[in-house]
């Protein structure tokens, strides 16, 4: 039997250079619906000027990342039940650390460009065992890589909060995962704004909806960078 809850969506609104504010929408929802379902209904029945991003509705495109009651969530797979209670509030805001285009939509261009520059592979061989970085060249089946480029980790990172120059967790994890530390990638990641800028808050791994474990990958990348430097120092190939 479906339940009905009354919840209030408090939605961040911002257009152009206008000051931001929150709009409140009281709604009847099924608590097992997802946060994104509510936002879509607000757009459909209350306010067609509400801007937000989404596509797949099943945690694959990575477009629907937002702050839900102060925490980074992929809204298409976040049940309303998990973030509020009957009579409660769902505050929805755009991700942190990205420029806001309008309302809940943010500009992720630089992030996507960085992912490409470090050689992140959105599609990998089925034999590619993400967590250990193993690769089976014989395997010709393909699958999507774990990282869906949602940007939630960048939004949650305290270092990305203070400088846009920091590459950020997903990008460093992408470099670690691709395994191809060519000179161009090394230039990016073995630098002040690369792997060495992380301050170990581990917030990225907490919010990642896709089990990429970016914090672990950053640390593993550092290990690889240090071992390259040591080998270089002793002239070992």
């Amino acid at each position: 039997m479906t339940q009905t809850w009354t919840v209030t969506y408090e939605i961040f609104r911002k257009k152009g250079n206008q000051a931001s504010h929150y709009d409140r929408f009281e709604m009847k929802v099924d608590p097992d619906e997802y946060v994104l379902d509510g936002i879509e209904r607000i757009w459909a029945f209350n306010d067609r000027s509400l801007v937000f991003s989404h596509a797949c509705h099943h945690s694959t495109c990575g477009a629907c990342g937002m702050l839900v009651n102060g925490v980074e969530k992929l809204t298409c797979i976040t049940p309303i039940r998990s973030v509020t209670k009957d009579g409660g509030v769902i505050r929805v805001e755009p991700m942190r650390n990205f420029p806001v285009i309008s309302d809940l939509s943010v500009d992720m261009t630089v992030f996507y460009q960085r992912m490409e520059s470090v050689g992140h592979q959105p599609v990998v061989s089925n034999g590619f065992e993400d967590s250990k970085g193993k690769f089976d060249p014989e395997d010709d089946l393909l699958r999507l890589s774990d990282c869906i480029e949602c940007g939630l980790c960048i939004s949650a990172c305290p270092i990305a909060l203070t400088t846009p120059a920091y590459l950020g967790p997903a990008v460093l994890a992408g470099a670690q995962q691709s395994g191809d530390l060519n000179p161009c990638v090394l230039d990016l990641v073995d630098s002040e704004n690369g792997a060495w800028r992380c301050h170990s808050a581990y917030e990225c791994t907490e919010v990642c909806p896709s089990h990429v474990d970016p914090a672990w990958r950053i640390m593993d990348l550092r290990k690889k960078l240090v071992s390259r430097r040591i080998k270089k120092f002793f002239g070992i190939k």
Partner: protein
Amino acid sequence: MAEHPQKPANLIKWFDPRNKSLGSWAFILNRITGLGLTVYLFLHLIMLGQLARGPEAYDGFIALVKNPIFLAGELLVIAAALIHGLNGIRIGITSFGIAGGKQKQLFIGLMTVAVIAIVYFAIRMFTH
């Protein structure tokens, strides 16, 4: 194009523990203790300067630091050093890919050691 929202003033948000996980609490604690120890270092150097003002000034200063308020301050310094040092060990080893997946357990374990040591020092300082 919309502007990047980052600005140096956001630094203050580093200290906001709301909706954060254990890793962030460790991060915040390390910043607070680090800043505290830096301030203490300066105070310590100023106080050492008293030595240069002769034995009377020094004796007066020693009498002052035996006051319970000073003792509590000293205990805060010990606590900060223990927390910062032990958490530093955790960051040091996890930063190079060792036990990164166990950072929470490491934090809880090392902070338990810190609390036991702080209680031990408090008992010694206030009962002698």
